[in-house]
């Protein structure tokens, strides 16, 4: 059987011309040519639908920050229940990372572009705090507004629904300001931890009772925030066990 010329199929698909009698007869009989014509028509339809796609808006910056935070949390920490994997050359790789060919999975530094985005957030947060100070009830309270020393976007961890999110800010008056949203409801309560990602040692900072909202928690004096850089929010049961349940809902790494 003589198939239709491919050029003809393209032109028919674009509505350039009507199928002649002989062509119509062939198309009825020939599945191959009919299929090709349908495909080309489909492509032409998709092509016509691409018009608005040349000027798509950029995603907002916080999407990128969320990506970095979530990847950092996922790559730097295995699981809280899992034992810390043995690392070869542990003491050696503390000082001399630049010459390490195989980069350690944990504790490695992200390139400058990653931290730049986070630093920008910290700057924005300071801006917000400043605005609050201006707009807040002035006059009777001359206490200076605490500055933000470090901050961490908190991202859903593990099986936590992805709409759960939060922010942690270390304020100059040694308090941890937490904002959380859409935490899944749990039978018990939420607990806030500061974790050293190298040793997986941790401090409990306090608890949260609501899955959305803000809390201000005092940071224990003996926590070294240059080491305990990971903010973790866990789901805890009323089980008289003060240890971390292993069920982390949100995590993020402090920078700033």
């Amino acid at each position: 059987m003589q198939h239709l010329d491919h050029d003809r199929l393209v032109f028919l698909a674009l509505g350039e011309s009507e199928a002649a009698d002989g062509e119509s007869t062939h198309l009825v009989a020939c599945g191959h040519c009919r299929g090709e014509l349908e495909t080309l028509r489909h492509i032409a339809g998709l092509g016509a639908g691409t018009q608005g796609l040349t000027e798509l808006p950029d995603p907002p910056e916080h999407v990128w920050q969320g990506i970095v935070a979530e990847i950092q949390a996922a790559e730097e920490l295995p699981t809280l229940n899992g034992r810390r994997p043995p690392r070869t050359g542990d003491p050696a790789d503390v000082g001399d990372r630049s010459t390490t060919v195989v980069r350690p999975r944990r504790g490695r530094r992200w390139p400058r572009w990653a931290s730049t985005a986070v630093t920008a957030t910290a700057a924005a947060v300071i801006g917000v705090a400043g605005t609050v100070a201006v707009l807040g009830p002035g006059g009777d309270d001359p206490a200076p507004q605490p500055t933000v020393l470090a901050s961490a976007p908190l991202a859903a961890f593990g099986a936590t629904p992805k709409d759960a999110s939060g922010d942690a800010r270390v304020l100059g008056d040694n308090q941890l300001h937490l904002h959380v949203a859409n935490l899944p409801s749990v039978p018990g309560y939420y607990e806030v931890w500061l974790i050293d990602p190298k040793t997986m040692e941790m401090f409990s900072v306090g608890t949260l009772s609501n899955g959305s909202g803000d809390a201000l928690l005092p940071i224990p004096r003996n926590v070294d925030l240059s080491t305990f850089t990971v903010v973790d929010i866990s789901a805890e049961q009323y089980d008289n066990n003060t240890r971390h349940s292993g069920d982390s809902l949100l995590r993020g790494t402090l920078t700033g």
Partner: protein
Amino acid sequence: MASRPVTAARQGPEPPVEDDLATRFRDGDEAALREAYDRYGRAVLHLATTTLVNRSDAEDVTQATFVAAWLGRETFDPAKGSLIGWLLGIGRRKVVDRIRAAARETRVVETVKQLPEPVDTGPDPDTVVDRLVVADELARLPDEQRRMLELAFYDDLTHQQISAVTGVPLGTVKSHIRRGMQSLKRRWEVDGAAPGPRPAGLSGAR
């Protein structure tokens, strides 16, 4: 007519460097993640915003797509398709999951409230992915081919009219359009999402 490529602010005849980016992405080069996001974040967000009702859901899906892609980069095979096709495939699955979860939730609520069926959702994710893939390929075509196809697609001009508008001989117009259509079709067969008529012998790797 706007002709900025959907995925990159590429000007002039500079050839795409996609292969290099895809390989670096797969090999875990962190700068490649940012590059991929700069290039394809818009397309993934567009897929999510057009198919999901809730804007913050759409941003979550975009975020989750890049996180999943990065953490699962070892499963990406540049030989089987483009990076944008792969990213859109991940995004499409996440969008579909969201739509299903929302539908389940609605059904539960409906059962309780006995309300009529909810209004249907946005456009089909497969079609949005296919359009984005075709738009990406269109942006990669040689300038002349792209120009001719845009006049045919967007302005609905006949080949004769295109020839008159551009001053390009009719035979040349036809051959540009034929080649351009072939490229779009090949790309769609490799990276497209929607099942459709595909010629036998092409597996349509996704």
